[in-house]
């Protein structure tokens, strides 16, 4: 199933690498990626990505993304294929 994952993160160098490292380290490919500072607070960025993959594994990835110190909030909008 395709997952659309949004991550609200600190707008700092290296944060995107941490987020992507958790996904690519498990052999999953990111099909689509968009990063923008939020209009309300330029110190915070929103990462939106599309990742096809196993639901259970991606649930685990989402939990681990939440654990990252620079990640403020993660939501997985699982999408019907």
């Amino acid at each position, binding site marked *: 199933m395709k997952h659309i994952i949004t991550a609200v*993160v*600190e707008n700092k*160098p*290296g944060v995107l*690498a*941490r987020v992507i*490292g958790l996904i690519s*380290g498990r052999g999953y490919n990111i099909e689509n990626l968009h990063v923008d500072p939020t209009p309300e607070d330029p110190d915070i960025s929103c990462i939106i990505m599309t990742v096809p993959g196993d639901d259970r594994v991606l*649930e*685990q990835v989402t*939990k*681990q993304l*939440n*654990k*990252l*110190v*620079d*990640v*403020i909030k993660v939501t997985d909008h699982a999408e019907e294929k």
Partner: protein
Amino acid sequence: MYAYHLFLNIKKVNHIVKTGAKCVIEGLQKAGVKTIFGLPGGAVLDIFSKLYHAPFEFILARHEQGATHMADGYARATGKVGCCIVTSGPGATNAVTGLATAYADGIPMVCISGQVPSSMIGNDAFQEADTTGITRPVTKHNYLVSNVDDLPRIIAEAFVIASTGKPGPVLIDIPKDVQQATTLAPIPETVEIRGYRPTIKGHPGQISKLAKAINKARSPVLYVGGGVISGNASEELIELAHKAQIPVTTTLMALGAFPETDPLALRMLGMHGTYAANNAVSHCDLLISVGARFDDRITGTISSFATNAIKAHIDIDPSAIGKSVKTDIPVVGHVKDVLKDLIPKVNPAEHNEWLKQIADWQKEYPLDYDRTTSDLLPQYVIEQIYEITKGNAIITTEVGQHQMWAAHFFKYTKPRTFLSSGGLGTMGYGLPAAIGAQAGMRDKIVVDIGGDGSTQMNFQELVVAVEHGLPINVIIINNKRLGMVRQWQDMFYDKEHSATILAQHNRPQNEQIKSNNRPEYLPDFVKLAEAHGALGIRVESKKDVAPALRKAFETEGPAVVECMVKEDENLYPMVPPGASLLDMVHKMT
């Protein structure tokens, strides 16, 4: 008048302006650091020049891997955050194994690394490596400091992140120009990190649900992991187990969290767990996991793991829950707090039938070995260490057969007395970890139990123990083999001993070295110990074990006791990889 004011202002400013290097020292002091392990180099010279005047005990390792394991051993033995300082490039890459070891086992550590000046980063400068890039997957968090004004805050944050939630190593990479730059920023009193708020209090509803399940259970088991040790929850665990008469099995990481001399102790479970523990877990109706993570060495085949049991899981790490095994009652929170809330809700119980069944399993296959043989067996050496120290010692281990025998034949009764690389399985961990543990616990007997293979990996650190008068005892179970790998070759690879025979005899044809110069010992650990300035003793027979150990424990400085054990003794019981916990092998067929 004007000049006077100017003078005053300068004086005031001088008082608080400090360099990045000075911030590091102040930050470490403020965090309560007493002992630092490390090795200098070009990119950390500024910090070392400040260390020259600082009130820390600095322990100079001989390899950065050693420094990280020392900081790790110090942290495991004392419960404080371990601290080490290394240089850029190879200094940092050498530290990676130690960081990964601490990360896998959730050990609090702060590692400071030097980096080439900011202007040279990315230029393939001398001793440059992308340290934050390399260590990202093996640290809980890491920082590349680009502005000296951030440094005081970062150091304060690093200690909070390392020691709270599920603990772990944090690395701070500081370019040389940042160490030299000056700032007015003070070390903050408190830190606020918006993306980092570990859950401490367990959900009351979930705790009640768990209490109800415990009160209903007829055959419950507590399956306890390293979280109980890092969460200092041993007392609460004992209280819960005794109140509801629940047998307790511990993982390798949790040895000592529950006294193994207690009648409710099932001892270790999993691949090399006891028959009673593996049976109890497989047949229980309620499995309460406390600070453990259902590692593959614990569960065997997941599909046949504790199939009849309701599974409860108490863990501070939400991502540990449901990772490999589906959990019926998850409780996220600090184990100590959760257990404290849980105990009053649990009714006293007896579970006589269940405990009788467990006692039968314990009688059927106890942990045992051939005590009648005149051969010197590895298990005998460990048992002697237990008897002579009366169990009152801090044991560190390397990785392999000896590590499991150290788990089987020494009974651990106190937390923080068994220090071993459980998750990553790092050979070379035990000796430097023993040095770190002894540096933190001067009045304890510290014993590193190692094999001849893994002890060689960081043997150079022995000089550090000699230098600082740290009387560690290195007991080498020398079977002239990479024993655990050799055992797997015996069991699963047609006894083809490829690259596992360390002695020159009995090697496969293509590994034989054609030379007339065949030293008897490879290496000669007694000479090696003496070369490092330590006492070295070789033991070749059973009767010599106890006197040698006594001599080692009594001698003032560090000692190495090399025990020449039977070469091909195998470790049992064993659950073959990919099998169910009930398919235990008790003997080689």
